[in-house]
């Protein structure tokens, strides 16, 4: 599996242009000589992007080589103005890591080959425009063109490459979800699939296994693989893998191998399609980027990076279970994203409500935590769960307040609109956070409005 992730630095990878291609309201407004590939421009790496790439490598249990460099990957495509992409070839920022996932009830380790940093390309759009130069001279003649927007050109892009350890579309989906979660925990990317800030590229090959027991111990990979490009959802990745697996099996059963190629995913039809093998064998002629001096870390810098890694989901789940006595299910749900986990911890800090109760409220969405502060949630739970009867004096006070503010309802009621009292009752319940007794309140209201 290969995964591309756009980092959410404020500026681009090698220049000071704004990094906000999705938020730009016009094409080609965040460009400069560097990211347009104008002659003589000098790229300078963004320190934060480099640090974030290292951070991601560490979070994926990678080794961080002390020496690293950028390289040029040469090819021609209109979305790449320089004729090469600045990437990393043989000395990436992070190598030889792993990510443990849970498939069914079993733990499984997926190897991470490398994590490297590169620049994103411009965005291509295909369109048909008027063609005034049409030789026919006809009015309304049109031609097919490609339009290019370089707002995305030079946006920092991390590429993560796994070992060939994933054995099924379901394992792929679980792995990708977990990777996505870690990236979000690190707060280095929105990893928003719809906006294309996280793009998935499964490399698929199929072979017959003799025994199911040995399915993880395959010594030799099949002599071919098919890459499906630019998938933008976990479920599409799963579907594309299933589609390809079936397609390969059908071909393999005729005694042939599927053609090694790059394919696209058609989400409407739910099929993959051949993307016309980009020339014969690609020859990117990588060489060290002469404009960017190499990067050398000291051991102390690497340990400083390690200290910057927040508590990641697995550790947090274990701690939630131990520290708050939550079930594994509750802990897993609460830690799905960092925001919710942080919210939970703030809410239980006051210790006025048992952690399990708070967890229950959040998980069952009894309150809208996007609108309520953790303290607000605690107060609400307190009001709802510990129905301390209100003193008569307190209740009277609340009622008077409600009557004073809602004079229209008072007038309506006096004019014979009986339903107005229900509105007032509702207001009292709300102001008292549900502590007022409905029957008593109604009696008092009726008396007061006589």
């Amino acid at each position, binding site marked *: 599996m290969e995964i591309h992730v756009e980092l959410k630095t404020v*500026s681009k990878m090698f220049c000071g242009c704004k990094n906000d291609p999705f938020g730009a309201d016009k*094409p*080609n407004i965040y460009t400069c000589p560097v990211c347009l590939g104008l002659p003589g421009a000098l790229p*300078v790496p963004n*320190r934060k992007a480099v640090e974030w790439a290292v951070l991601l490598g560490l979070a994926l249990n990678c080794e961080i080589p002390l020496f690293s460099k950028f390289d040029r990957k040469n090819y021609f495509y209109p979305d790449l103005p320089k004729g090469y992409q600045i990437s990393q070839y043989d000395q990436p920022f992070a190598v030889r890591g792993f990510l443990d996932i849970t498939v069914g009830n079993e733990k499984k380790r997926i190897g991470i080959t490398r994590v490297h940093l590169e620049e994103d390309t411009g965005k291509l759009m*295909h369109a048909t425009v008027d063609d005034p130069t049409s030789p026919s001279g006809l009015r309304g003649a049109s031609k097919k063109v*490609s339009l290019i927007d*370089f707002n995305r050109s030079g946006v920092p892009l991390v590429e993560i490459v796994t070992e060939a350890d994933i054995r099924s579309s379901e394992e792929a989906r679980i792995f990708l979800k977990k990777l996505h979660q870690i990236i979000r925990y690190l707060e280095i990317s929105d990893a928003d699939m719809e906006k294309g800030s996280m793009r998935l590229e499964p490399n698929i090959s199929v072979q017959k296994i003799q025994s199911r027991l040995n399915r993880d111990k395959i010594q030799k990979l099949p002599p071919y693989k098919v890459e499906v490009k630019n998938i933008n959802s976990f479920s599409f990745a799963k579907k594309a893998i299933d589609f390809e697996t079936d397609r390969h099996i059908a071909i393999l059963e005729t005694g042939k191998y599927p053609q090694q190629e790059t394919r696209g995913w058609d989400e409407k039809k739910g099929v993959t399609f051949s*993307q016309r093998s980009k020339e014969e064998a690609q020859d990117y002629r990588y060489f060290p980027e002469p404009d960017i001096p190499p990067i050398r870390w000291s051991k102390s810098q690497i340990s400083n990076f390690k200290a910057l890694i927040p508590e990641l989901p697995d550790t947090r789940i274990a701690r939630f279970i131990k520290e708050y006595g939550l079930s594994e299910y509750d802990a897993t749900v609460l830690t799905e994203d960092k925001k919710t986990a942080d919210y939970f911890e703030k809410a239980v800090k006051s210790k006025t409500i048992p952690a399990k109760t708070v967890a229950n409220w959040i998980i069952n969405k009894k309150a809208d935590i996007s609108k309520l502060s953790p303290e607000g949630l605690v107060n609400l739970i307190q009001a709802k769960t510990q129905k301390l009867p209100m003193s008569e004096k307190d209740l009277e006070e609340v009622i008077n307040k409600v009557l004073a503010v809602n004079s229209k309802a008072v007038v309506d009621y006096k004019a014979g609109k009986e339903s107005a009292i229900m509105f007032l009752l509702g207001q009292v319940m709300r102001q008292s956070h549900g502590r007022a007794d409905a029957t008593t309140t109604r009696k008092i209201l009726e008396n007061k409005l006589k």
Partner: protein
Amino acid sequence: MADKNTKLTPEEIYKLAKLANLSLNEEQIKKLADSVSSILSYVSQLQSLNTANIEETAQVTGQENVFREDIVDNERMLTQEEALSNAKDKHNGYFMVKAIFEEE
């Protein structure tokens, strides 16, 4: 080392031209096969140097760890008009090129 072995075939020139995004006619390919070969022979004189004790490098400045901070530099950003000012073809604020067919 600078001998006939560095002689390039027209097929190799054709491949190089393709990688460099150049379209050459047959005559040009023939001519280039000779001239590029002679350039290669000339440069390959370097092979006669003894580099056994020389460390490999891709950098001659000796610099390392040159970074910029993550700050937007509005000064150097171009307006849309400026960005497009040298473009051969443009359309609605986009650079325009001949259709690239990625898919059917």
